[in-house]
């Protein structure tokens, strides 16, 4: 059974209501069980409740989260870095900087340009790369993605993708070329909100996206990343659905390494204002609740968050981090600058200002980052905190290439 069918019968509303109304007894019971016995969806709901956010519980939950993280992962943080291939997109999504109707500067990097950007990142120490692109079957075809992976796999032991969802048969050659992980966020698990925010394009199909991790697993991806974009809908509702999705994938895709991301909305082109503000306090509670419920699952932290918050989230459950990220194609070395354009109705239009030869012009970012420290600076900070930065934790030979 796929998660889409399980999701239809999932009592999201009841669990969300329970998350609102959990009692001290519910919180204490969930805390006592966590990491020791099997926990239930209602245990998770209790851990994200307003009751559990009270200082006397939140600190205890954080302590337990820290303990479980150290036990399962040790004092190490794995580094990865995103490389944006393209910001072309055929979807209109109200919250995304790459949305088709945003008049932004766009570009798709050539293979050579991708290699140049990647070499720069490799020289900084990275060995885990995440290739990111907008959804565009023409500019970002499955053949293009396969070619990118094939060009990079010799120098990159671990290559993951965060791109528009594909069919199993389209994924397979990409895996065979050396890709190891696939990341796809559902954005929001609320069908109504999803439908309202995704105005047009293939992304409008909620279920197609929901079943993507399972298609990726069937195609041979070894790491699966899921997440919800915080700010689109009530976060506790998103959390219970994300937890159910996680539990489902752990059972069904039992040979994959699962990671969860909890990205919060950042300012982006289009100026979308988050419908919901998820506070630092709530984000901390969410991360801790995930750790208590899924002690062995990786939790990802991106540069969307500030240095201070990032440093403080690490002991609570984070296992993977990006650092020094750019969220636009060509962002690291200025590749593709000569081809910047505006896309209208699927056609290139000259950009509104002269960008060629102009220093500093670059493609438009997907969102603004909040941690501007270099990877080396973040690694030094981790060392001060008693953590080892692991740059390489995979080997190409394991990918069957």
């Amino acid at each position, binding site marked *: 059974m796929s998660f889409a069918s399980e999701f239809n019968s999932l009592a999201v509303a009841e669990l969300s209501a329970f998350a609102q109304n959990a009692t001290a007894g519910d919180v204490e019971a969930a805390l006592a069980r966590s990491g020791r016995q099997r926990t239930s969806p209602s245990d998770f709901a209790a851990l994200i409740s307003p009751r559990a956010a009270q200082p006397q519980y939140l600190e205890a939950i954080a302590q337990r989260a820290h303990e479980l993280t150290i036990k399962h992962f040790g004092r190490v943080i794995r580094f990865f870095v995103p490389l944006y291939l393209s910001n072309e997109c055929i979807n209109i999504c109200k919250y995304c900087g790459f949305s088709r109707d945003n008049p932004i500067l766009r570009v798709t990097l050539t293979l050579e340009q991708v290699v140049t950007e990647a070499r720069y990142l490799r020289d900084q120490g990275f*060995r885990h790369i995440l290739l990111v692109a907008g959804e565009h079957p023409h500019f970002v075809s499955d053949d293009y993605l396969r070619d990118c992976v094939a060009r990079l796999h010799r120098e990159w032991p671990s290559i993951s993708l965060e791109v528009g969802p594909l069919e199993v048969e389209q994924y397979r050659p990409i895996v065979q070329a050396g890709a190891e992980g696939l990341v796809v966020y559902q954005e929001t698990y609320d069908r109504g909100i999803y439908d309202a925010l995704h105005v047009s394009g293939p992304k409008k199909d909620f279920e197609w996206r929901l079943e993507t991790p399972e298609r990726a697993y069937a195609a041979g991806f070894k790491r699966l990343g899921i997440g919800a974009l915080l700010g689109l809908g009530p976060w506790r509702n998103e959390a219970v659905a994300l937890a159910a999705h996680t539990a489902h994938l752990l059972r069904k895709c039992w040979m994959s390494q699962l990671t969860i991301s909890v990205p919060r909305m950042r300012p982006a082109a289009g100026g979308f204002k988050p419908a919901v503000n998820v506070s630092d306090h709530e984000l901390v509670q969410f991360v801790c609740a995930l750790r208590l419920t899924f002690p062995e699952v990786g939790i990802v932290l991106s540069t969307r968050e500030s240095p201070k918050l990032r440093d403080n989230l690490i002991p609570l459950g984070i296992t993977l981090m990006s650092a020094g990220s750019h969220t636009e194609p060509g962002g690291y070395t200025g590749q593709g600058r000569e081809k910047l354009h505006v896309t209208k109705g699927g056609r290139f239009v000259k950009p509104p200002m002269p960008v060629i030869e102009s220093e500093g012009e670059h493609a438009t970012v997907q969102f603004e980052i909040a941690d501007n420290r270099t990877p080396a600076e973040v690694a030094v900070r981790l060392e001060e905190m008693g953590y080892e930065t692991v*740059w*390489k934790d995979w080997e190409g030979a*394991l990918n069957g290439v």
Partner: protein
Amino acid sequence: MTDKPQRLRIAHRDFNSRLIMGTGKFASGEIMAAALEASGAELVTVALRRADLSGQHGKFANILTFVDAKRYVLLPNTSGARTAEEACRLARLGREATGSAWLKLEIHPDPRYLLPDPVETLKAAEVLVKEGFTVLPYIHADPVVAKRLEDVGCATVMPLGSPIGSARGIETRASIEIIIEQATVPVVVDAGLGAPSHAAEAMEMGADAVLVNTAVAVAADPVRMALAFKAAVEAGRAAYEIGLAPKRRDAEATSPLTGFLNEP
């Protein structure tokens, strides 16, 4: 009669220490190196996926920098491999890069509990032994799998006490006892040993060695914890060699029936 103190012998090589150390989860390479030193271990396992196998000695990607290959017998491991094919490929690359033909064969397709796949492990062991590797396979405490691996030429068997990193101790005691009883190669209890007492227990049972990683790596003071495990392994081994008194249910007077003979 007690056994004389014996050294551990694996594949014609003698070791004074019966504690094998892992190298994952440490807060820094320096702390790891200090803990290895304190443990007295001579055999050290390293995940190949964390080593630079490109021959370029990458400064960012090389856990091997912190394991002195002159002091320790390097036991590269195949953690991350989900199939025999992946494990064999990684093993060959590892041998080229590290120069060590010793191999801790780990194939755990499930990244959550890291439980070993017996079918793939046996397949890979057969191939790798033929290719000249000294193979130490990580297995469930399954006596038949242990015998099958011995039959294909493995240098040891390494049954788990409980899942990796779980610190639950020897939950597979009854099966490990059978493995020890039947083994013709050293039995190394690997995984789940969360306390020195667990390591001592394995040694008292007659295990030839134990492998410890998480319990030391995540301890508040890894160096002292390494010393504690070293002492526990030595104590457990000595007790095994000397022979423990049989367990009884009740307290027992020294000579309840014949004591009267000595009365004045």
